[in-house]
């Protein structure tokens, strides 16, 4: 019942049917030895994208790897006339598929299936939006920042990484009028420590009436900590989860997140269709996938 209800809700949010774009790599920009931004030409797909949605990228036409890899859409790309021509992803090299994307050269064609999944709730009407990003968890916040800017919602980004050289694309967020708060675990830039340190302080210093909404994306431990802070300070919070995904379409049931049911129990929800964005309060955080 619960599943059905939320899926019905979903359909209302997700009118766009996914397409499989035979996307040309327009550019690949290396940000470090591990991180890069890959830009794809895919006008129809990109035009339909909403912040928080993802694409399933086929990193190899062969069998290594066999399955597609999920990536948040990072930027929506426009030509000089402002027409949407494609999108980019922020990719971190961690294994075989992300390595192929890291090495992708302009001109290559890559099959990208999307847009997929449930986006962030519309930020219109929000008093103030705080985004919390760890590592590649930055990705969904570029388009969200655009949308917030268009809606005139004050926006802030808490952005953490291991070290200063892994904080990327800050100018892009500053250009969008985002107030950026940085934290690094080794203290080389911004606050020393996890991104939740400045977040906790700022949450604590706001009156409960100030209407702050939280959006988080990053490592599981960070999401859990942000969810905890949101609960403690009584803030609405949405988190974008990153589970291993076999299909991205609801077909395989691999990508599950344990969520609460209205009846007080819990169930496994497919994060590719009911997520990747969930209300933090809906997730049963005790359980932790490997």
């Amino acid at each position, binding site marked *: 019942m619960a599943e059905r209800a939320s899926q019905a809700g979903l359909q209302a949010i997700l009118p766009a049917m*996914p397409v499989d774009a035979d996307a040309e790599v327009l550019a690949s920009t290396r940000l470090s030895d591990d991180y890069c931004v890959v830009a794809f030409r895919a006008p129809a797909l990109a035009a339909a994208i909403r912040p928080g949605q993802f694409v399933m990228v086929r990193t190899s036409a062969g069998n290594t790897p066999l*399955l597609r890899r999920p990536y948040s859409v990072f930027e929506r790309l426009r030509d000089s006339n402002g027409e949407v021509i494609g999108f980019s992803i922020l990719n971190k090299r961690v294994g075989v598929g992300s390595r192929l994307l890291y090495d992708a050269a302009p001109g290559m064609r890559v099959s990208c299936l999307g847009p997929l999944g449930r986006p962030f709730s519309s930020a219109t009407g929000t008093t103030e939006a705080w985004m919390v990003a760890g590592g590649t968890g930055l990705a969904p916040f570029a388009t969200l920042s655009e949308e917030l800017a268009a809606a005139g919602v004050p926006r802030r980004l808490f952005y953490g990484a291991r070290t200063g050289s892994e904080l990327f694309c800050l100018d892009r967020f500053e250009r969008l009028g985002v107030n950026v708060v940085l934290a690094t675990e080794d203290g080389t830039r911004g606050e020393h420590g996890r991104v939740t340190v400045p977040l906790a302080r700022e949450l604590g210093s706001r009156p409960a009436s100030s209407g702050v909404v939280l959006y988080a994306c990053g490592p599981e431990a960070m999401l859990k900590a942000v969810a905890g802070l949101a609960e403690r300070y009584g803030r609405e919070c949405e988190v974008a989860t990153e589970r291993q995904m*076999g299909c991205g*379409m609801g*077909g*395989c*049931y691999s990508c599950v997140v344990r969520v609460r049911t209205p009846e007080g129990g819990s169930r496994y929800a497919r994060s590719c269709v009911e997520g990747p964005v969930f209300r933090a309060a809906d997730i049963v955080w005790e359980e932790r996938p490997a």
Partner: protein
Amino acid sequence: MDLSVRIGALRLKNPLMSASGCFGYGMEYADVVDLSTLGAVVVKGLFLAERPGHPPPRIVETPAGMLNAIGLQGIGVHRFVREKMPELRARGATVIVNICGTTIDEYTEIARILSDVEGVAALELNISCPNIKEGGISFGCNLVNTRQVVSAVRKATPLPLIPKLTPNVTDVSSFAHVAEEAGADAVSLVNTFLAMAIDVETRRPRLSNVMGGLSGPAIRPIAVRMVYECARLVRIPVIGMGGIASAADVLEFMIAGATAVQVGTANFVDPFIWGKLESGVREYMRRHGIERVSELTGTLDIPGEKRA
């Protein structure tokens, strides 16, 4: 050109079906595939009751394949009938329901319930799931149990009955034979191969369930062999699957003896595969002057052997 095939009393538009567990309950793919264009939609394995499934990680990728141990998370037969069947009927899908049980009574009860449901075209009897301890594969690895469960369900339903065989046995064709004797209208194979993968850094299994089922292109040569063996032995149709990812793979299974095929893992990789498979098969038929796709079944030409 005639792509239709016959599975017992059931006539399918074409030999292409979704494999159970790889296509959700069907509606998940309604936005990208016109469900009525598939030979059949075989839905995710259903127990009588809802099941939570195993904790993640539930899949792991392996060379040219994947392991899964979903644990048959599912909504149970009643919710399926109530919530999913109306939509599937509305889309004009030919629905085959994959049924699972831990006891013979559970199998027969699900079969009885589904027999009265409009739009259920056939039952696929899952006696081969490697991911649950109770039932499932324990029926499918033992000839006596296979005979019992197929006979019992046969008595419980007038629907076309398709036991799905496990490849984790010494001689799969003997299971096909027993299923035929027990009244099956067809057999489908293969389900996944019991397998495991270990993270050597943590020395832990990569799946929460320790073991899972291997599917995908990696297993295709074994699956083709098994389909060939079964098709030579039994007279009922054989539905082949295991690693199909192209029209050539569809044809390979049919030439080996399959009347129809199912596609699982490849649908994850490319949910738009269905049109490509169909047009690839048509193109082959045109090139080879084949009018009816069913003519292809079992036409393997072994030099020196007489054609069957």
